[in-house]
């Protein structure tokens, strides 16, 4: 399926420092249209489009808005999640750099639909260099009179992967440690400061103006049965041409990594970031959509020179470092996995290690508090599925190395 630009339509077309160039590209037409509709009608349109969250979880956007709209309470909040911490993901950085106006317009529409008077953009601290451009863009929109119903504030993170998780993100805005909350209650009923809150990823919001201008039916015709529209991918790793690209949902992995990014000698591809699924080269024609594998749209390519265990152990090291520590399965599970994988990479694996990894994976995925712990074992389980021989070889080598040192099997 082809490249199609909905989200990135204005990127490198407009001047992100000049709102007039955005107005020339139908900027704020969608907002004007929305303001002529009832908030319920706006939500109905978004619901009918079947737009799903692009941050990784894929929750239906319209439903989220509707739940928050129906929640009681005069004060409601809208948060744009720009805490793009997922490993291998940089699409939101690209969007914020090249087209902040569509995002602001989308937030203005969303806030109108929710009757929220205050919105926040939670920007990760590592993107501090984007702050000035973003503030400037908001000021320009305000000066043109498009933000009379809404105040948009920017809150900066301070370096924490977990703050991309919505409940941790809200705790961070509240000035606390960014730890995941127990759910329910979910943010649309009780979110920021206990008030109904909608949290949308940058890319999700970027679809809103186009949906309103072209209609839900138009959007519905693009993509697969359960994944409508396009997806922006961040391609990196062993490719000739890394970067950001936008494809229709359901496009095949090889269209992105081979045809677009010119990867060669592929061993495997990780899709969705640190906790993303592993696709071996034999399955390179896998279509990417919510039905299969997608996540945040991070596409990291590994060529045949790469060692699976080295990669998995580094990934688990990352997750162990970034676990917020609130729930035991994730805090301890990632540490134990790291201990096992670290030993294996150093040639000190034990025959029972694979079984322990499998048992741990199972416990963590069913009992962790949030997505980090629930999905932490995916790269381990997937590589055990497709590259089990590498684990087994490493254990055999470990046994042999120990015998050379005159050590016993244990």
């Amino acid at each position, binding site marked *: 399926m082809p490249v199609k630009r909905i989200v990135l339509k204005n990127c490198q077309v407009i001047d992100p420092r000049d709102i007039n160039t955005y107005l020339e590209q139908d900027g704020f037409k969608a907002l004007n249209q929305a303001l002529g509709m009832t908030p319920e009608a706006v939500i109905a349109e978004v619901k009918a489009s079947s737009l799903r969250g692009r941050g990784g979880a894929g929750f239906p956007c319209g439903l989220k808005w509707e739940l928050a709209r129906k929640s009681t309470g005069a004060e409601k909040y809208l948060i744009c999640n720009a805490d793009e*911490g997922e490993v291998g993901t940089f699409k939101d950085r690209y969007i914020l750099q090249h087209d902040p106006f569509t995002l602001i317009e989308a937030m203005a529409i969303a806030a109108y639909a929710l009757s929220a008077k205050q919105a926040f953009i939670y920007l990760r601290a590592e993107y501090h260099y984007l702050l000035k451009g973003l503030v400037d863009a908001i000021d320009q929109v305000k000066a043109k009179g498009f933000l009379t119903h809404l105040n948009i504030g920017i809150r900066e*993170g301070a*370096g*924490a992967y977990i703050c991309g998780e919505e409940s941790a993100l809200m705790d961070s805005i509240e*000035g606390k440690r960014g730890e995941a909350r127990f759910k329910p209650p979910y943010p649309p009923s009780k979110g920021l400061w206990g008030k109904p809150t909608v949290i949308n990823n940058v890319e999700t919001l970027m679809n809103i103006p186009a949906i309103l201008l072209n209609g839900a039916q138009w959007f519905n015709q693009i993509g697969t049965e359960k994944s409508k529209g396009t997806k922006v991918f961040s391609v*990196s790793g062993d490719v000739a041409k*890394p970067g950001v690209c936008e494809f229709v949902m359901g496009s095949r992995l090889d269209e992105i990594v081979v045809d677009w990014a010119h990867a060669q000698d592929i061993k495997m591809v990780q899709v969705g970031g640190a906790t993303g699924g592993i696709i071996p080269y034999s399955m390179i024609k896998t279509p990417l959509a919510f039905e299969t594998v997608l996540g945040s749209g991070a596409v990291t390519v590994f060529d045949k020179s790469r060692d699976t265990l080295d990669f998995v152990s580094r990934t688990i090291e990352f997750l162990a470092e970034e676990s917020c520590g609130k729930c035991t399965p994730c805090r301890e599970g990632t540490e134990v996995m790291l201990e096992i994988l670290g030993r294996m990479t150093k040639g000190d694996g034990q025959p029972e290690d694979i079984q322990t990894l499998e048992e741990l994976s199972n416990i963590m995925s069913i009992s962790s508090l949030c997505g980090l712990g629930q999905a932490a074992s995916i790269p381990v389980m997937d590589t055990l599925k497709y590259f089990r021989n590498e684990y087994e070889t490493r254990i055999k080598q470990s046994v042999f190395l120990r015998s050379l040192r005159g050590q016993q099997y244990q």
Partner: protein
Amino acid sequence: MPKKLKAKGREFLLALLQEEQEKNGHISDQFIGQTAKSIGLSISEVYGVATFYHLLSIKPLGRNVIRVCKCIPCYLKSSQLVVETIQEELGIAPGETTLDGRFSLQLTNCIGACDQAPAMLLNHDLHGCLTPVKIVKILEAYP
């Protein structure tokens, strides 16, 4: 601490800590104590927030903080070579600060510049597609 911040309370705790980090290069015990008292939180709570986030530090850092990305996409593009170059150039290992207080070297998780791997942040500036020659030149620009 300015009075207006005092009135704002807990929501601004993170912002206060970020401001202090920016101004003095770290968050001292004394600052933690003062802040706790002025916002009406326990020292333990303020300390908890100050030590949760990677970009906040309770230990003094150099004037310029180098954060080399160590995540997979940069690792695949030899981020280790970046660390080694800086180590050789400045004579400090990750986690250390030069004796003259000019640089601190840290390893960090994904900074969202995987299309420009290997990459690093120097203070708030992003530097990508790093090579040893390029790194030496970049360092010179930070007195």
